[in-house]
């Protein structure tokens, strides 16, 4: 059946099996490839999107569960969180870049909740997102700088 929701503010409709994880609906049905497959088990955070504001692992989110909801993906982040994207690029955070969509989505949620996050806040919010290249220190810096800009 058709599932209707919004992605980055635009209404979309996906007709796919209801158990299809949102990740694959985004990638295969909507052609939005910014959100990445990393583990399929909500262990690595590469597929993180925000659903009604909450960071969620889209690989474990059934398509049917987002009916009527608002989904935010990395493709909309420069519009919604320009300072975060700016500090991210300025600090040359990405190495290979593959995990970065998930990192950015988790970071954006943290900053929406916490104006100037502490190291502990960052550890708590970001430890579900693995980066194999090891960009953690720069992620921390970029989040703090984006937080400072906001306050």
């Amino acid at each position, binding site marked *: 059946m058709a599932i209707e929701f919004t992605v980055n503010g635009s209404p979309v409709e996906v007709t796919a099996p209801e158990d299809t994880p949102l990740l694959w609906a985004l*990638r295969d049905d909507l052609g939005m490839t910014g959100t*990445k497959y990393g583990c399929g088990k909500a262990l*690595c955070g590469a597929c993180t999107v925000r659903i009604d504001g909450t960071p969620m692992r889209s690989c474990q989110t059934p398509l049917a569960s987002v009916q009527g909801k608002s989904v935010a993906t*990395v493709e909309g982040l*420069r519009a919604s969180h320009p300072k975060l994207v700016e500090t991210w690029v300025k600090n040359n955070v990405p190495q*290979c870049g593959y995990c970065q969509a998930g990192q950015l989505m988790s970071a954006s949620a943290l900053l929406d909740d916490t104006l100037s996050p502490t190291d502990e806040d960052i550890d708590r919010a970001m430890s579900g997102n693995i980066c194999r290249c090891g960009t*953690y*220190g720069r992620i*921390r810096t970029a989040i703090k700088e984006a937080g400072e800009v906001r306050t």
Partner: protein
Amino acid sequence: MNMTVANLSRRRFLQTSGVLVVGAAVPGCSTGPMPSRNATLTPNVFLSMAGDGTVTITASRSEMGQGIRTALAQIVADELEADWSRVTVAQAVGDPVYGDQNTDGSQSIRFLFDVLRDAGASAREMLRTAAAAQWGVPVAECEAVDHSVRHAPSGRSVPYGDLVAAAAELPVPENPARKSREAYRYIGKHRVHVDADDVADGKAAFGADVTLPDMAQAVIVRPPSLGSEVAGFEPPPDEPGLIAVETLPGVAGIGAVFNPIGGVAVVADRTWTAIRIANALDVQWTEGPNAAFDSAEFTARLRESVQADGERLWDAGDVDAAFAADGAEVEALYETPFLSHAPMEPPVALASVTEGGCEVWAPVQDPQSTRNLVAQWLGLDTANVTINVTLLGGAFGRKSKPDFVLEAVELSKRLGRPVRVTWTREDDIGHDFFHAASAQYHRAKLDAEGRPTAWLQRTAFPTIITTFSGDAVDPADWELEMGFSNLPYRVANERYEYAGIQPGVRMGWLRSVCNIFHSFSANIFIDELAAAAGRDPIDYRLDLLGPSGILDVPGMQPPEGHGLDLARLRHVVERARAISDWDAARAAGRGLGFAVHHSFRSYVAVVLEVTSGDSGLSVDNAHVVIDCGTYINPDTCMAQMEGAVVFGLSLALHGEITMSNGRVDQDNFDGYPVLRMSESPEIVVELVPSDALPAGVGEPGVPPVAPALVNAVFAATGVRHRSLPLRV
């Protein structure tokens, strides 16, 4: 870009003549009276300048996070005297016109530095010559500055774009003058990565991000042990979206090179449909001898082998007599486990096999070998095979083995449509080309001052050569040269021995390869000797190292300028000591650990600080000093060291792959954890300014990390660990 490439000589990529391409870039554009804007200056395969002055630099190496697309462009743009904002970077297909493209061994800059300087300089010289001719003045009076040529005596200036048509008619200079180091504007300077914005926008294209019309999605149920064949399976019920179920032949066992390991491919219209059906498929297998492979039994054999005489690499002085003399002895056995690469992007490839040709889009480290293997697989001429290299979502050596590409090629051929093969994380960790498990044995005799008078070292590990030749046993010289046969501590009486054992799984190279276990044991053993001698570990090392000169290693002839320079090694040791405040006392429960290693022609020293308390062990900070010779992008070099600390701590604290009955016991990030944000220390990196030859950056930061951690834990707790991962 690729069209242009195809027209160039395959023999000498720097000496092709200028190509004037008229009207090619803008379909429908007039080719009449004003051709200059449509001209393209293409003096070599690495750069092309359009008539509007925009520059396309082609990166011949694969981007996997090491910043290579940016660094290569910096070199060309610098010599070209280009305006960085007018430079875009294209990615080369696999083609020998670019020279070696194998992105491996931390050698891209080392191989390409001079080649790319000449590539940029040749275009710059052609533009200067064209301007001089236009003005009727000597070339020597024309200076290339910031995307234009200026003639100071007359005050005239012309933008590069206006010179492209004339420059394209000129011969390409054979030996263009290179800039002096002082004149560099991009080399050695910070640049944000060219792909950073695309990554942050979710627009960067990785292996799974290319789509083709009519593309099908495949997921493969892979054999439980290497060398299994499909015996049968219950076909899945037909359902909308299921396209095909295909049996793929297996391989005989190790020695299968990069051939796919076989299995049952589920092909569907959507990735999820393929995953779901594949997960439910009950496949029966005929297993081979590797079904008995057990890593615990294997590591026990490794352990035994280094406690007996091995094959002798060399023997200096009189080792037996030195050990027979009076004095203290120290001996220790070290072990490291199998590891999986686990790049964040699991292997993935899209192939489209058509009548007489094949095109691939995949994250591969070596598009040329991929192209050759695909051509061989299909019985095609390589000219009919195109390998497009996407961004690599991490690789660490895994993606130089293109078995996943061949799977997509085979399925596309069978189905007559484009097929993308997605490896699940379980496929990736369970069916990797694994980093070798190892055992190292060290024994030393100490004199009254605690200095070693005799040294015995043995290494045992399954060689990577087993992946290429199923009957290989002995390690290759290049494996032993990774931190074993080229240890910088020379002792008058020394003996080095090795042993190899055949594994029951595929071996492959993983970021820094054998340096991981050789640096591990040597750096800890030196620490143990220092402790036995009651000496500071850094003082002790400095005493053992010669004061200067190039390390003389029997049987090794490093290229000129790339020998192990003891003064440079000592310098990184001293700098790490200084920036980590090594000599200041630490509180109880805190400890500092040191390690230094020379690999990939670079010198890296690491100090880690740990705290051991009621809540366990925390790694508080890392200080890293690297001397990689001439560097291109300092920020990238620092980022690679930061990443190396995280990668090294991942393997030291968590990394372990085990096998039971030929099956890998781990299959995802729960069983095979990697370091997370909360475990990541603060990292300070110092980059040694140097005008030495460029050396490696991507790998050499990893080897010192794990031993520095072990040494720090010893300093903090008095407990000496000798195997990985650390059980703390």
